């Protein structure tokens, strides 16, 4: 994934005087890459199954489950906002597609289209309300978080009479949708879940978008100083609403994976707490909580760190009572390495 770090081909005169090494070190994701390397070496040394090449697919899958959502969450954080409803929005998307297709006995793909519309609408609502009221995104998306959590359970019970959605596993379109969102293939002994491929594609596209397009520049601008950005003609409102809708799109995508990886059934209580994992991945990957700085590749590395630690603890066969404590220590370790490297880089 690190291959997406590229040097600009149109050289700006302010950076052309600095060496490649220094330029590389001043990238937001470099600290997290070092952190990832430390964690990788640590588990490779302590956990034998971690070294087994066949298990790479499992670790990448654990990372991709967070990584896909970390892409838009990182963009949103660079744009100066964050979204607490992102975790349950994934469940909402999965439930909407499943419930719609089941209740109306229609092709699953139609349910997915409706679900996409709902997910984008939720994102648009978040962005619109934020811009309309001027409230902090913490409050607006906390409200959405509770609304979605309640709707997930209430609507599921109203339609299916239970707290899990009815299975769409035997309905038309399931197998083709399963192939797109939740299939897997073998690659030299490694079982690769297709969501890993999608994750890499998303990271590459989003990184290019952020670094090479006008809108990418706008995102940095609105996150750094919205008033100044507005003064130079950046459409702040559009950018922010667009960012929230991007979160909506990815929530839909992850929700589709959730639905099709579980034989077409979604539990309505899922997803609570996941929003923090997405934010953690972005922060470990170098995004500032205050906005205006960060990278998509960094967020991907952050997700990779989380995946490696989460499963590394299991691969090491440590006493499970200590699981969360290990996880916390490792994440702090990665973040501190990240910080130290960044300070060193800035000092040059």
């Amino acid at each position, binding site marked *: 994934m690190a291959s997406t770090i590229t040097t600009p081909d149109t050289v700006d005169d302010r950076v052309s005087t600095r060496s490649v090494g220094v330029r590389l070190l001043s990238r937001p994701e470099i600290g997290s890459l070092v952190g990832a390397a430390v964690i990788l070496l640590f588990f490779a040394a302590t*956990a034998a*199954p971690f070294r*087994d090449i*066949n*298990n790479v697919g*499992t*670790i990448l*899958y*654990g990372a991709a*489950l967070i990584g896909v959502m970390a892409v838009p969450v990182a963009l949103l954080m660079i744009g100066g906002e964050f979204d607490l409803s992102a975790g349950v929005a994934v469940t909402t998307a999965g439930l909407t597609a499943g419930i719609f*297709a*089941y*209740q*109306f*006995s*229609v*092709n*699953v*793909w*139609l349910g997915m*289209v409706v679900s996409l*519309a709902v997910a984008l609408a939720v994102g*648009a609502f978040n962005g619109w309300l934020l811009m309309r009221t001027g409230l902090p995104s913490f409050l607006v998306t906390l409200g959405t978080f509770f609304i979605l*959590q309640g709707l*997930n*359970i209430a609507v*599921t019970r109203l339609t299916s009479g*239970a*707290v*899990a959605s*009815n*299975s*769409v*596993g*035997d*309905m*038309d379109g*399931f197998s083709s949708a399963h192939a797109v969102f939740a299939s*897997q293939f073998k690659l030299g002994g490694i*079982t690769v879940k297709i969501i890993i491929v999608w994750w890499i594609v998303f990271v590459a596209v989003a990184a290019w978008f952020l670094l090479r397009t006008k809108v990418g520049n706008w995102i940095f601008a609105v996150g750094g100083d919205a008033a100044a950005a507005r003064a130079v003609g950046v459409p702040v409102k*559009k950018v922010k609403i667009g960012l929230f809708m991007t979160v909506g799109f990815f929530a839909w995508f992850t929700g589709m994976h959730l639905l099709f*990886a*579980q*034989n077409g059934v979604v*539990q*309505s*209580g*899922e*997803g609570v*707490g996941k929003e923090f994992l997405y934010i953690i991945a972005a922060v470990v990957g170098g995004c500032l909580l205050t906005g205006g700085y960060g990278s998509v590749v960094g967020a991907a590395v952050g997700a990779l760190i989380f*995946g490696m630690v*989460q*499963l590394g603890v*299991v*691969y*090491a066969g440590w006493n*499970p*009572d200590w*699981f*969360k404590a290990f996880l916390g220590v490792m994440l702090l370790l990665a973040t501190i390495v990240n910080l130290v490297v960044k300070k060193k880089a800035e000092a040059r």
Partner: protein
Amino acid sequence: MVRWQKKAVAAGAALVLVAALGACSSSGGKKDEEKAGGSGGNVANTPRMKVALITHSKPGDTFWDIVRRGAEAAAQKDNIELQYSSDPDGAGQANLVQTAIDSKVDGIAVTLNKPDAVIPNVKKAVAAGIPVTVLNGGLDTWKTSGAIGYFGQDERIAGQATGEKLKALGAKKVICVIHEQGNVSLEARCQGIKDKFGAVENLNVDGADQPGTQATITSKLQQDKTADYVVALNAGVALTAVQAAKDAGSSAKIGSFDMSKEMAKAVKDGTVDFAVDQQPYLQGYLAVDAIWLNKTNGDTIGGGEATLTGPAFIDKTNIEAVEKYATAGTR
């Protein structure tokens, strides 16, 4: 709304309409599902009562949905208005008990999986003359709370029975998957298996995150190649474990606690070996019915002792008898 947004909405709506005209699924879906037969019968002519059912469930958990169904069935029959509430946090659940006392209910059915937090308020309810029944959790502590009855299974005994079953099945190494770290009942189940079976290793996963659970179980099976049985402590985790074993290329078999519609299917087609059923419907039903019997006739179900609702093993040999109830969401 700006122009491109309007266009997008219009395009989306058009797509939905077009697709709706010719996209009916030829299989599955609601149309395909036969309605389960409705319940008939008369309602008791005793005075209308108000009973609160207060659990430690997280929202959206299938197991607790079945408990609630049982309670609602009893309430309907007994002319009771049932007020359901839940809070996974001990202090929060205790506060819900206080709320029930304040709203002057005629009876309270409560879980005591967090006994230290909840029992003080249960005692208050008892002191206020409100009969209390305990269900699901609290086998060791329900008597001290002053409750009139207990309906659930002894988790340790259920675990031990599972241990014996695993021994009989010829298992060698068992992974016991705990989906809520620190939950006393779940720990007791794994401990019970260990009592009788020995080679048991616990694994903590986050029960509210199915794909993450799957990745964790996969990695455990890759790490420990000797494991030949995974025992999940709820139906959702068990079905995830089936997928995880497939991913890990492991031949480990899956055993589970609790039933659900999907679990019944899995037991029937053999992807899950067995399920230990504690009959949650019965727990909810009896906990409410016991209050009614106590109020109207001075009865105590269990006669002052715990009434055990499990463990009952469900496997290929008896799944036929259970399946239709599981499909209807009452088993």
